[in-house]
């Protein structure tokens, strides 16, 4: 039995290969051109993203102390990172920011988008632009600007509060810096998220609204029962953006630290901790490990969130 079937099957396979041979060569030829077109991107991608990542990962497997020099330690830096109270405190801080900041940005962006979607006057275009403008301001400039606005001496708060005979709060004190940072980020990013949500709203077929009106739905019901569910995949995307941005929180606190060094220590967020480890304390190896550890956390959080919302985002 075996002797008769074996040649047949091998013969069949050969024939099969022969048939497939021609299109395969054509396919490969086209592939080559594809690679060529991708090459400029691939080159830059490899040089400026993949190679540094590989290099940083390699660095994170070594340890280098001031007094003793380089030594291979495997994953010891990671073990240290996930038990380092400064890193864990930083994660807790950004988690708190996430809890407050992401909903704040979402609510502002969603309400603005829903209102603008209903308006059809020149005011709509103008307001859209005005809400979006903060996003056009570079993050560092925005943070510097807010630093001055919060300043007890240069900021408008003291003048405004003086009108009512009250003393202005210090926005840069230890217990108010959290809210001050939330405000900066919301100001900057709500406009960007608003545009994403607004674009999704414009993509909905207006016929659905007409049908809803015929069924006696109010404007509010249209907004909450029709519009919001229909743009849920955009909302999920916005939350993912905000989540990743918050976990990597760096620029705003780093800039504001210039005027509030006591309230914002160097290890305020994980990214700031990695930055100061590398560039202030020259612990490049441990800083690489912290960065990768943060990357893992970001990945886990994003993955988990996408898994939870797989129905809304249309991934399932």
């Amino acid at each position: 039995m075996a002797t008769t079937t074996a040649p047949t099957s091998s013969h069949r396979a050969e024939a099969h290969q022969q048939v497939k041979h021609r299109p395969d060569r054509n396919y490969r030829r086209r592939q080559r051109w594809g690679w060529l077109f991708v090459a400029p991107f691939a080159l830059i991608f490899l040089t400026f993203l993949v190679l540094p990542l590989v290099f940083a990962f390699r660095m994170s497997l070594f340890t280098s102390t001031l007094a003793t020099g380089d030594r291979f330690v495997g994953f010891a830096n990671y073990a240290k990172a996930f038990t380092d109270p400064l890193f864990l405190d930083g994660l807790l801080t950004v988690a708190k920011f996430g809890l407050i900041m992401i909903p704040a940005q979402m609510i502002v962006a969603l309400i603005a988008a829903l209102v603008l979607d209903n308006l059809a006057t020149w005011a709509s275009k103008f307001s859209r632009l005005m809400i979006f403008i903060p996003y056009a301001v570079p993050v560092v400039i925005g943070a510097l600007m807010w630093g001055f606005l919060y300043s007890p001496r240069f900021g408008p708060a003291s003048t405004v509060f003086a009108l009512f005979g009250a003393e202005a709060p210090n926005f840069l004190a230890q217990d108010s810096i959290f809210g001050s940072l939330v405000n900066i980020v919301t100001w900057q990013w709500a406009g960007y998220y608003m545009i994403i949500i607004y674009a999704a709203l414009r993509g909905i077929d207006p016929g659905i609204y007409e049908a809803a009106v015929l069924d006696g739905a109010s404007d509010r019901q249209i907004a909450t029962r029709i519009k919001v569910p229909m743009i849920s995949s955009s909302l999920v995307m916005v939350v993912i953006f905000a989540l990743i941005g918050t976990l990597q929180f760096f620029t705003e606190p780093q800039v504001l630290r210039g005027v509030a060094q006591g309230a914002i220590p160097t290890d305020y967020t994980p990214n700031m901790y990695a930055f100061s480890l590398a560039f202030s304390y020259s612990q490049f190896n441990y800083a690489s490990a912290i960065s990768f550890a943060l990357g893992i956390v970001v990945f886990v959080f994003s993955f988990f969130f996408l898994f939870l919302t797989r129905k809304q985002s249309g991934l399932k």
Partner: protein
Amino acid sequence: MKATFLASVGIAAATAVALTGCSGGESGGGGGGSEAASCTNTVVNAEAPQVTVWAWYPGFDQVVDTFNNANDDVQICWTNAGQGNDEYTKFSTSIESGSGAPDVIQLESEVLSSFTIRDALVDLTEFGANDVEGDYAEGAWEDASSGDAVYAIPVDGGPMGMLYRQDIFDAAGIEVPTTWEEFEAAAQTLKDSGDGAVMADFPTNGRAFNQALFAQAGSVPFEYDSANPQEIGITVNDDGAKKVLEYWEGLVKDGLVATDDAFTADYNTKLVDGSYAVYLAAAWGPGYLQGLSDADPTAVWRAAPLPQWDAANPVQVNWGGSTFAVTEQASDKELAAKVAMGIFGNEEGMNLGVDAGALFPSYAPVLESDEFATKEYEFFGGQQINKDVFLDAAAGYEGATFSPFQNYAYDQLTVQIYAMVQGEKDASQALDDLQASLEQYATEQGFTLT
């Protein structure tokens, strides 16, 4: 087909090489410098080898031009790579990457050991540094050397004094305090007068400023010698430091001093608008004050010696001060050493530094000149502040030792003093916690505590 594909890749590669080659050719005009960098200044003798220098002194462009005009065999290629920490960050990164550092670099004396421990600086004794030792103030030379090695050439110092507002003192009926006890009494008088000004600022991020005040009461925070780079002695919570911090804790609690962060825009304005009656300053402070805007036009500034703990045995301290060091990445170390010693190591260069940059010279021939002593400062109503205050302060300064992780130590000091000001712990506890955190850090970094 394969040939065409390879040819295309070849063309792309050739283009890339041509582009880089082009940009490389433009900046590669230098002779012997380690980096073909672009200079801020104009090089006079294009033939001569170049030495790259990073520095942030005010008015340094004039000093560089003078040097380049006076030297045929070497030229300075100067870049301002940022002030203080900004520059150190760049230097630190280039040490890690093994390239990109300048030949000669301006470093504050307090960070020298942070770089010597990374083998980033050249011992200048083999290039004749010992021959010029006599040209420099003793304390400044001490700060730039470690054991027998000399890692930098001193440029300017920061002996401390007290700059005060005579008009505010007069209005409140305050005599110029000479001891810290009198300083506290004066602060109370000022507060009671209802002037609105506070006596002074005690910034939680004062870093070297806080440390200098501790040193005045005899605190010796670190014992470290580059000859034994793995051993360090840490006593940041000694009696001297505790005495001083407890004193300031009292002033803060009684509302006699402010606790604003230093070197912010707010702080700069408050320094000159009458919010503080006193600016406890280093010798570079007067220059700093004059550069600030929004000054109170009626202000009457005067300088006096720093208050003392024991008027009979005055102790002088130093805040800041910088040096020129030669980096290990310098291609021609001898030439670089010559530049490091030559920029301010002559009367012409140092005088320019004094006039254009308001530097307090470490170079003895200028420091000890009558001209410098009797220089009248218009900002202080013609007072000869060097003679009255800073020359004595400089003469009494004996040098200090800093840790090889000074930036970390300062950051932790800020954390602890801030916690104290917030009322989370008292001064003694803050310094004990600082001691614990630094001991732990040093151990983690592989040092042996002595």
